[in-house]
């Protein structure tokens, strides 16, 4: 399966040129770009691993792209996303977040149903990738 988290997951994977243009857009708005990666893309897994700090002071798209390239080289078999953070009062949140790398095989998720009273079901979404311990997934 193809997970569709992030702003552009229904489009074909973005080229480096397209990624760079989006980063440029974020920097023009004064947002801080950061890179995160994970091998557990559960929809409620909020805290992916940070690939360094948010780049508050880096205002050059080429510099950010160098970090993206470096993240891909290190974690090529993980999901990697680029986030843009806006510190404006009343927002103080992400304004854009999109995937820039996927593992070569995406095993997806199973749905575990626990049958409860009155036809109710308690649902659990389980990442197949987490069947293996961290570090051994997506080999």
């Amino acid at each position, binding site marked *: 399966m193809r997970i569709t988290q992030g702003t*552009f*997951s229904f489009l074909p994977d973005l080229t480096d040129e397209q990624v760079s243009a*989006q980063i440029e*857009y974020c920097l023009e708005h004064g947002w801080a770009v950061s890179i995160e990666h994970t091998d557990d893309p559960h*929809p409620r897994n909020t805290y992916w691993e940070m690939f360094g700090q948010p780049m508050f002071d880096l205002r050059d798209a080429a510099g950010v792209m160098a970090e993206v390239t470096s993240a891909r080289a290190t974690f090529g078999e993980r999901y990697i996303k680029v986030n843009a953070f806006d510190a404006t009062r009343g927002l103080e949140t992400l304004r854009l977040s*999109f995937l820039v790398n996927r593992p070569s095989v995406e095993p997806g*998720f199973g749905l575990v149903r626990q049958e409860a009273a009155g036809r109710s079901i308690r649902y659990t979404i389980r990442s197949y990738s987490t069947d293996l311990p961290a570090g051994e997934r997506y080999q």
Partner: protein
Amino acid sequence: MDLDARKQLPSADRYRAGVLKYAQMGYWDPDYEPKDTDVLALFRITPQEGVDPEEAAAAVAGESSTATWTVVWTDRLTAADVYRAKAYRLDPVPGSEDQFFACIAYDIDLFEPGSIANLTASIIGNVFGFKPLKALRLEDMRFPVAYVKTFDGPPTGIVVERERLDKFGRPLLGATTKPKLGLSGRNYGRVVYEALTGGLDFTKDDENINSQPFMHWRDRFLFVMEAVNRASAASGEVKGHYLNVTGATMEDIYERAEFAKELGSVVVMIDLVIGYSAIQSISKWARRNDMLLHLHRAGASTYTRQKQHGISFRVIAKWMRLAGVDHIHAGTVVGKLEGDPNTVQGFYNILREPLNPVDLQRGLHFEQDWAGLRKVMPVASGGIHAGQMHQLLHYLGEDVVLQFGGGTIGHPDGIQAGATANRVALEAMILARNEGRDIWNEGPAILADAGRWCTPLRAALDTWGEVTFDYASTDTADVAATPTPA
């Protein structure tokens, strides 16, 4: 007693038993300087033939605050001068000779803290049926920060909603299940499953889906949540369906909301017709239970649409931000329902901005500071389709739920294809906009390009590309150009 009908009287004359003009009773005071703590209202007044507009404005101030039709000596047992609302400004409506804008100031202590029911019982309680007026419309209101702070506001708000859903940088996508009446629970869930797996973020119950013979509410909730969870597992995204918990009594509403929570829904929905107190009750419930609260403005057009009489939707939008909902239907501009572009943008600004400056072209007559109150996500729904994506983004911006009901379910290749067409159209347009392209002019070309590799989008454009709803709006701003501060 031959007195100037516009002048206040000395106390002894003012309180002599009998009938006085409202202006003479002190409800017209052109020298009054509104206080920062006053609640302000702007009414559009159409007096009956022969009725002096200042007297009409004074009557509105009187009937919406302390007055009755005759002098009562018991006023003198109160600080009547403070409690009396004051009409302090009157302007002819540009282009409409029989109509006037009247500004009225109300002391903050006239209102119960945190109660929309009390606020509205004063402002719209009696006065709309008043005989000397041919018609009356509440155009806008300004709430002082001190009063805003007595409300909890939206339980979730735009920022937290996005963080919970993990969806940033684009409008959210939804669809209302169709046909709105008649599907069984099992078939209803099928529509939800197809639309969400196809790429939508939300699906929705319609306003009149509650618990009917063809589908009881529990059955709907169970089938829908199966569909929502399947779609979430299939995509890796958080998905939701607005489960309409509207019921005959508050006990029914709570029971349905609790069941939605037990099943793991992230959102519930109510109709505006449940009433202001019910809305505030379920809002507090939603806040306690970390639930998004979607409001369908069922019934609103009965009193918001006509310019001369009723309540502008901008006022309803302000009341609902105070009352505390997370989503509210606020117009599409380009779809099948009423919506002049400037007027609709005025509604959106009320829902989404931390502070609204005076903006007469968009119908905002007062500055409104929201004092940190969370923002409401507007919902655009009704006769919109993928071919309008550039226009929707241009008019409505990014913080909006674009809701394509027919535009998803009516797709020639099925519901999943319809959903995919909408999602691809949206992402392609955001990508292009961020790249600096002029989407207003290049929009159709951007969509056609994406349609070359996305068959569902191509089919959607072929089916609906030319559909527009181009009718004159009835609810438009009165100030067209070169606005001056109110």
